[in-house]
């Protein structure tokens, strides 16, 4: 089923006016905008809060919505900046996204191809933590899954910009359940051979792969040593060449496995890499190796809670945060390639809304 992203983020880009009077503004819909009598200001910096830090007034344009036009983002020099990092204040109170700040990417809407949400609870894997984390990284939407499909039934995925996968457990999941969930809006299948104890090329997967082929939806598969080894995943991909298969994490293990995963992607046209827990230099190397059309950014959020993308100490191989790494990565890739990796590839594969040119 083709999906359109429908969302009302706390803070996001918006176009006001038409034609020559068109203005690109930041629109704030958070708690502080509920009281229009208080003057709101947006406090911001670019590309990871680099100096100078600025403030500009937000104007109320309707109840609950305040907007601001940032002088740095006019048509002539907007390409100098990659991302806006910001928070909002009314002079007394701050909305800094629960201490994580907000990020907006300049020129495209980023998508995270690997998310988890367990339900509506208040914990790290609950919906509120995930939404906060995504807002801190400028992720406007994403592909989500949970180890028990029933838990996802209790969440409002669409409102949060989440596109669910159907978790497949051979011997337990029924064909009819998969078909029903795909018809209800799920955008693909999820395999986790490690925790579910089967090899990734298990013949018991074939009925589910046939459903994916028929529905034209991709399969995301955990990639790691053992049952989820990329060698197994490749064999599955060879049996079902019409089904795109995304290797989640590329390979959650030593570099040798990542190289093997990349080799398989080069040789098997329906394989793709997802990059959660890879440092940005590794992601860059993978992109150089297999091409920017075959790599999807993902983070595994919000395993580490609302600070997932900016955790201290850093959680990406203990050395960097996603937010810091993405600034470096996007700068090195340039906007066209970055748009693909941070959104367009996933939107194309999962049948979402076209491209990442968010405006």
């Amino acid at each position, binding site marked *: 089923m083709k999906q359109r992203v429908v969302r009302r983020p706390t803070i996001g880009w918006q176009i006001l006016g038409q034609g020559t009077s068109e203005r690109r503004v930041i629109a704030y819909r958070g708690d502080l905008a509920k009281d229009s009598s208080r003057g709101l200001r947006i406090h911001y910096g670019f590309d990871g809060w680099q100096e100078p830090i600025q403030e500009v007034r937000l104007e109320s344009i309707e109840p609950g919505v305040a907007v601001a036009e940032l002088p740095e983002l006019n048509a002539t020099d907007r390409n100098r900046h990659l991302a806006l990092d910001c928070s909002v204040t009314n002079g007394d109170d701050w909305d800094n996204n629960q201490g994580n700040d907000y990020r907006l990417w300049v020129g495209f809407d980023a998508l995270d191809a690997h998310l988890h949400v*367990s339900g509506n609870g208040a914990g790290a894997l*609950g*919906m509120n933590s995930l939404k906060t984390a995504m807002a801190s990284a400028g992720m406007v939407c994403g592909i989500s899954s949970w180890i028990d499909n029933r838990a996802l039934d209790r969440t409002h995925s669409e409102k949060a910009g989440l596109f669910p996968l159907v978790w497949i457990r051979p011997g337990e999941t029924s064909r009819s359940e998969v078909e029903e969930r795909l018809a209800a809006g799920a955008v693909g299948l999820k395999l986790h051979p490690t925790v*579910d*104890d089967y090899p990734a090329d298990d013949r018991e997967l074939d009925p589910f792969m046939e459903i994916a082929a028929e529905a034209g939806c991709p399969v995301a598969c955990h990639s790691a040593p053992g049952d989820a080894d990329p060698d197994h995943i490749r064999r599955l991909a060879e049996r079902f060449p019409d089904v795109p298969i995304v290797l989640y994490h590329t390979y959650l293990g030593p570099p040798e496995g990542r190289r093997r995963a990349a080799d398989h992607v080069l040789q098997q046209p329906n394989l793709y890499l997802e990059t959660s827990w890879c440092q940005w230099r590794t992601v860059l190397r993978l992109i150089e190796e297999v091409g920017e059309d075959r790599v999807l950014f993902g983070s595994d959020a919000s395993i580490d809670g609302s600070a997932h993308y900016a955790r201290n100490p850093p959680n990406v191989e203990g050395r960097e945060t996603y937010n810091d790494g993405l600034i470096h990565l996007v700068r090195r890739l340039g906007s066209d390639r970055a748009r693909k990796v941070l959104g367009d590839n996933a939107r194309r594969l999962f049948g979402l809304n076209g491209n990442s040119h968010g405006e």
Partner: protein
Amino acid sequence: MAASSLSERVATESAPVVRYYQIEKWYYDYAENIEAVNIHYACTPLGEIPDWNNQRATRFLPLVESHLRRKVLKLPLRIPDPNRGELNDRYLLHHYFEIFADGDTRYSSLYTEEIVTGAGGLPMALQSVESLTTEVSLLNDERDTLDDD
């Protein structure tokens, strides 16, 4: 809560060659808000503690009936015991449960129990021979399947 009633058997009924020692682990959902339960486990020689970073295996425990989760773990018949210089069929199984509830992750106590598979010990030098035997048995299984076709 962290119930782990035990049922043990050597997997001889359906396989021509024994490859695993199977053990069942159960978990009773003590609350309605449990969203998933995983079991983490590792095997060590007697008297040793696991290196969880390198030895951990993780399995999801599916609900088999209301509030009751069950998983059959496939354990090795023997594990290397460097101190004794042999492959030992007596070893320790360490496990704990990871419980997801309301988006939070909680952990049970760590449980340790002695496993005796009954497969008998082997000199360490035969480890590669045992691996080869397992591969041969797998090949035989595949051939049997083809013959059936």
